[in-house]
């Protein structure tokens, strides 16, 4: 596993609209959220920031949207330095945060009108823009209803509309579909595709859904432990992995060193990873590799409970570059945050 940032895929030609260099952020209590994170988003493209909870995605978004300050490092958005000219950055960006943020005690329309006013829209221009957004996000009928009566999908659509009131140059979408039912999620995906395609908006999207990144983002940056471990187009990332993924599940925890020694000698296999009961390996021809693997493991005294062969997926990409499985990283992040209690988590903990 490499520790540096790798780039793979097509050569970059566009102009960077979002650029972050060497961002470091440590929260009180010693939790390192960002550890030298660097990224760029080119004009009119969607960058998917993919990683488990706690990887540093939200902290990155908070810094780029002027909410938080990095301990060190620099970032520019739409040509403005986030630390030196936060006001200019704020005028250029639209933000859809993880938490809704819409005022539940106001109507959808009132939320939009207030948001527009904060960006200096007034009178007829403001009304026209609000009507336009209500219609576009299928909220016209609900415009005069309190947001607290909205469904999850309606609320999320309103959130996106709020982020677009002032026609921003760059849109930040922080986990836009978390908590949505499948139908609302698909609708949101279509909307994001439309924003990126027809309107040429530059979008930075964070997600912990592999399929979401795969579907929406032109380029994906995988975040793990506060830094980008690899970056490229979804196809290029998957193409980097030679051959099929073979996943084996053992009946009992295997001895890592012994299994590695046995399997490393086999021909046509690479990227071997042994983790408890799970053995993952890449093979040029997955189907042909299975009997060879089974035989070798049986000789080593490790009984196999299940074997699967799969074409490369983003999960495999994650495993390859982060050195662990996505679900494991997710579980670890949860365990970490339960113990450490960053300010953000303390808030959530105190709430419920």
């Amino acid at each position, binding site marked *: 596993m490499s520790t540096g940032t790798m780039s793979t895929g097509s050569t970059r030609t566009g102009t960077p609209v979002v650029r972050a260099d060497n961002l470091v952020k440590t929260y*009180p209590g010693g939790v390192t959220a960002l550890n030298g994170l660097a990224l760029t988003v080119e004009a009119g493209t969607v960058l998917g920031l993919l990683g488990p909870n706690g990887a540093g995605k939200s902290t990155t978004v*908070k810094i780029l*949207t*002027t*909410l*938080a*300050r990095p301990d060190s490092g620099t970032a520019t958005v739409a040509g403005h330095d986030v630390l030196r000219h936060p*006001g200019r950055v*704020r*005028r250029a*960006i639209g*933000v859809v*945060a*993880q*938490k*809704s*943020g*819409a*005022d*539940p*005690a*106001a109507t959808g329309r*009132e939320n939009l009108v*207030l*948001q527009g*006013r*904060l*960006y*200096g829209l007034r009178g007829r221009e403001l009304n026209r823009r609000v009507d336009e957004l209500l219609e576009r996000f299928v909220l016209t009928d609900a415009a005069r209803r*309190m947001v607290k009566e909205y469904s999850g999908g309606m609320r999320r659509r309103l959130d996106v509309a*709020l982020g677009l009131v002032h026609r921003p140059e760059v849109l930040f979408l922080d986990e836009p579909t978390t908590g949505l039912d499948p139908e609302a999620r698909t609708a949101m995906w279509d909307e994001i595709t439309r924003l990126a395609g027809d309107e040429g908006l530059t979008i930075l999207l964070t997600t912990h859904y592999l399929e979401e990144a795969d579907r929406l983002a032109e380029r994906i940056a995988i975040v793990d432990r506060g830094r980008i471990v690899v970056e490229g187009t979804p196809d290029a990332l998957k193409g980097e992995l030679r051959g099929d993924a073979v996943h084996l599940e053992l009946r009992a925890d295997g001895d890592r060193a012994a299994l590695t020694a046995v399997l490393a000698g086999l021909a046509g296999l690479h990227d071997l990873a042994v983790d408890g009961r799970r053995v993952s390996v890449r093979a040029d021809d997955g189907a042909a590799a299975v009997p060879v693997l089974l035989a070798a493991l049986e000789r080593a005294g490790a009984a196999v409970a299940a074997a699967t062969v799969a074409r490369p997926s983003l999960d495999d990409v994650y495993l390859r570059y982060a050195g662990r499985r996505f679900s494991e990283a997710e579980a670890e992040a949860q365990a970490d945050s339960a113990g450490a209690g960053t*300010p953000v988590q*303390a*808030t*959530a903990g*105190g*709430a419920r």
Partner: protein
Amino acid sequence: MSTETLAHTWYMTQRQLMAIVRQPIFLLISLIQPVIWLFLFGNLFKRVVELGGFGTTTYLDYLVPGIVVMSALGSSMWAGMGTLEEIERGTLNRFLTTPVSRSALMNANVVQNGISTACQSVIIVLLGLLGGARYPGGAGGLIVLVAASILLGTVFGALSNALGMLVRERESIIGINTFLLLPLTFLSSAFMAPAQMPSWMAAIADFNPVNWAMVAGRSALAADPDWGDVLTRGGALLALAVVAVWLSTRTFRSYQKSV
């Protein structure tokens, strides 16, 4: 203050006021509560005025300013709960990513609290009038009373907001408020003339900001107002309000750094 800050302050205040107006049950309760106090304490202590030192022969005359100030305290000290909710819901962060004037966000809390307290105070004064209370000090006296309760509301509203941003726990706000409300009320001249209090209690009450608001209001409402009392207590409240707002602004800045 720039015109932009003023405009933003008004938008934010408007938003908060609309949210309050749209809670009919909350409005009803905050209206019924002073009625109960006026009726309950008005009857319970009706005859204490006979002890003397109340400056009036009708207990209700004495009681109304006490209830006005007590209600200002009681409603303002929960301001932090609203702020906390806005933080948890992500509303505050949404505003912070827009070009909204930072001071407008804090100003709106103060202005909204002031307007709410003023409305509540005027309603209680009118209810008292309905119940037969008389205000010899007239309009001038009533204005002082309402201003004093606005200042007191500002003090406790700002402190409550600071607490909400600092501890970010509902339980802490509830705990501190329940702990403070009764001692602050009873260690004041709300129900009993200082002349009839044990001397140590009257001495403590002298340092109680809640009492300052009551003394200022009552003095101004008297037939022959003691403007010295009004100015000293009013001035002390104003100074305290400035300190409390400064403190909550500082806490807001540290919140912005902790996001």
